[in-house]
């Protein structure tokens, strides 16, 4: 059985390696900085929304089919493939909660002395919200800059809107 087989059912794209190469986090951070420098913050938010609704569309479809169980399966498989992540995933019928104890990206960027884009942690909200919305779900992110809580819930009127000030500035 190839190493990637354990991810095959929950992740939309699979590799022959079980875990990704952490230096690619440099490029993710650099991509955000490039868009911010050339086109500003609104363009960066559009990039995050577009990647969520386009590149990650298969994730939305899976969440639509599988509900909260699909959300939990996705994030368990996702963080198993990210080097250095320490994340607890808990699920109920109403909500999936990620307790990110160690964010693998922030950790790796810091270890290598990379300047982190201040808005970096906001991408988790904007990307995940674009994935969640077509599945009838929404996400709220609290914390950041190395550890955070992410709650995936059914999209109802009584969920308060995301306050971006609840997401820490990365450094």
């Amino acid at each position, binding site marked *: 059985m190839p190493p990637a087989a354990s991810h095959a059912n929950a992740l939309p794209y699979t590799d022959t390696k079980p875990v990704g190469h952490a*230096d690619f986090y440099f490029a993710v951070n650099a991509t955000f900085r*490039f868009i911010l420098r050339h086109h500003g913050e609104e363009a960066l938010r559009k990039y995050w929304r577009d990647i969520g609704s386009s590149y990650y569309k298969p994730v939305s479809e899976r969440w639509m089919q599988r509900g909260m169980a699909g959300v939990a399966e996705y994030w368990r498989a996702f963080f198993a493939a990210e080097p250095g992540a320490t994340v607890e995933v808990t699920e109920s019928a109403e909500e999936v909660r990620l307790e990110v104890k160690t964010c693998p990206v922030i950790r790796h960027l810091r270890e290598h002395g990379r300047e982190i884009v201040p808005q970096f942690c906001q991408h988790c909200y904007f990307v995940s919200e674009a994935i969640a919305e077509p599945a009838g779900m929404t996400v709220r992110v609290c914390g950041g800059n190395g550890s955070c809580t992410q709650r995936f819930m059914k999209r109802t009127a009584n969920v308060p809107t995301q306050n971006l000030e609840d997401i820490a500035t990365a450094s």
Partner: protein
Amino acid sequence: MIGCYDFCGHYEWTFEWLRQLGGHELVRAYWDEAIHQDSQLHASELIAGKGIKGMKEYWGPTLADEGAVYERTVTDDVFRIDMHECPSKGFLISNGLEQYRDYCDHCMGWIGPLMKKAGFVIDHEHNHCGQCWWEMRRKADASPASAPGALSGKSDVRLRSDWKADLVGSIDHYERATDPDDKTAVS
């Protein structure tokens, strides 16, 4: 979160997103500024400081970590890579991902400006199927690219039976280049 496990997938997707936003020039600027000068700053400093020795230090661990099947051939005058299974292009092919017109251009897009700054030129070909070869020489060295098999022997990717087989388009060819647009097609 945007992760590193499927990095090549969203990286390739990003090229097309940038092209639609700002055209080809924005994609070129992205490869140079974001990848060469920012993400791969460690490679740039290593190669600018140590030349061919720096290339050995950079491409040894990096390609191994990425899961590449490749051969390196190094002399005092040339650094050659024969890429038999590009992990990056391989990921895209196996997952059926193709948004941008030529993903393979990104390598020359960031390595080209890096080599120019370090005083090197590049001979290179890629076949869009996960195989390519590279020869880096100092700019003052007027030697042409090696003939197939002459430098890397049986490891030369050009000797593969599938190097040119069943290609819909053509092989992209660069001579003493440092710019992603300095290519010609070889049928």
